[in-house]
């Protein structure tokens, strides 16, 4: 049976993982290669690296990180952050990434999804959506993806700083039509609060796209992972804090889910 995936997310800047500071077993908690190996040994199903480097001239550091990680870690690697063109995608895939996650560049230029899928296959193209709940019945944006009175979540770009007037659910459907093979769906409302994923958002997207959805943002307990997979109908759960700070191990999370009837790889 296809298992539900548990995916730790590593935010990287200047070649170092940020957030991850409390591993006692690691000599260097901030080293992406060591952290990747650690999570691999613990049973992570996949790893997501997000390049949060602010300046674009330092982006080639991420290529080196991916190059190193992929020589030692033999599970799927998704890399996102700052990828703007098909050439950017090719560089990071050549370095050893298996998939690329794109958000801002795809919103600005949806054809990038099509071009990427045509060149590397849909399975390589992960659409990252940063979604925030819409207050009231806001109407914003233009065209078929615009927020209408019924819209409940709005897509944000530039690391959550820029509202776009794009309806998150409609955008997910459109991106899949263009060739995205997976949706990495982050609730900006829930992110960092550790009070649980936005289950309604996950379910709303999961029900209308025919590709896997990775729930992201808000994990604070193992029950939250379970809820995202069951109530949120997600295919995978992404988490950072609960794993980085050692609150739970990947193994603990998997045992918890397995005991409740969720198929996982143990």
């Amino acid at each position, binding site marked *: 049976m296809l298992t539900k*995936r548990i995916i730790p997310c590593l935010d990287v800047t200047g070649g170092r993982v940020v957030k991850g500071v409390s591993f006692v077993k690691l000599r260097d908690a901030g080293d992406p290669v060591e952290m990747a190996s650690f999570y691999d040994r613990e049973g992570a199903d996949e790893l997501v690296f997000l390049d949060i480097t602010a300046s674009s001239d330092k982006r080639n550091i991420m290529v080196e990180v991916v190059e190193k990680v992929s020589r030692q870690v033999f599970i799927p690697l998704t890399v996102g952050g700052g990828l703007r063109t098909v050439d950017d995608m090719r560089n990071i895939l050549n370095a050893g990434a*298996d998939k690329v996650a794109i958000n801002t560049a795809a919103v600005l230029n949806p054809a990038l999804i099509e071009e990427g899928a045509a060149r590397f296959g849909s399975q390589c193209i992960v659409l990252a959506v940063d979604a925030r709940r819409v207050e009231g019945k806001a109407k914003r944006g233009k065209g078929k993806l615009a927020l209408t009175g019924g819209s409940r979540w709005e897509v944000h770009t530039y690391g959550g700083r820029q509202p776009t007037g794009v309806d998150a659910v409609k955008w997910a459907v459109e991106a899949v039509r263009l060739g995205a*093979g997976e949706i990495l769906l982050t609730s900006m409302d829930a992110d960092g609060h550790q009070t649980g994923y936005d289950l309604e958002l996950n379910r709303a997207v999961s029900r209308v796209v*025919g590709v896997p959805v990775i729930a992201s943002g808000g994990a604070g307990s193992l029950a939250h992972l379970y809820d995202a997979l069951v109530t949120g109908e997600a295919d995978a759960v992404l988490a950072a804090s609960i794993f980085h700070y050692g609150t739970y191990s990947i193994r603990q999370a998997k045992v918890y889910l397995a005991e409740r009837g969720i198929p996982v790889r143990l």
Partner: protein
Amino acid sequence: MITIVDYGASNLSSVAKAISHLGYSATVTSSPKEVAAAKVIVLPGVGAAGDTMSRLGSLGLIAPLVKAVREGKPFLGVCLGLQILFTSSEESGGLDCLNVLPGQVRRLPSSVKVPHIGWNQVRQKAPHDVFKGIPDEAHFYFVHSYYADPDDRSLVVGETEYGVRFASAVARGNLVATQFHPEKSGDWGLMFYRNFFRFAGVR
């Protein structure tokens, strides 16, 4: 010596890294001559079958690959490297493939999410050296939208369920091919590669 066929498949570097991690030396090449002279061939692949066939065609690699399989050279196909061994594929509106194994490549049913992405179990249908030390129903990593349906079911050494029960590993003589990605399947995947190279007589 292991020869990895380079026609621009995006998992080429992952396959090469896994093989070198195991301590084997491998040549990566797109030269028909070198493929023809190869002792052991690895054919990676991920993405679109039509694109793969046309790239292999324009590089002049189809004839040496078909010849290698017919001659019984040790050969490992991964993902699309499995699918294109068959007669034809439903992908891109119908596509002729290498036709060294009789059978069709079909789209996964719409009752499940496609692509099939993630870790799924491989049920070992027939004993084979490539599974040595790997438990039955171990998990391997899959990423694909199409699956092979061999005419000759005796080729099937591994089966997986996803909306349909499909051949996730096939073998005939010195040929082995997998729908899953051993290079992305952690320890069992690395063991699978090592088993294949031992089976192929690589030191």
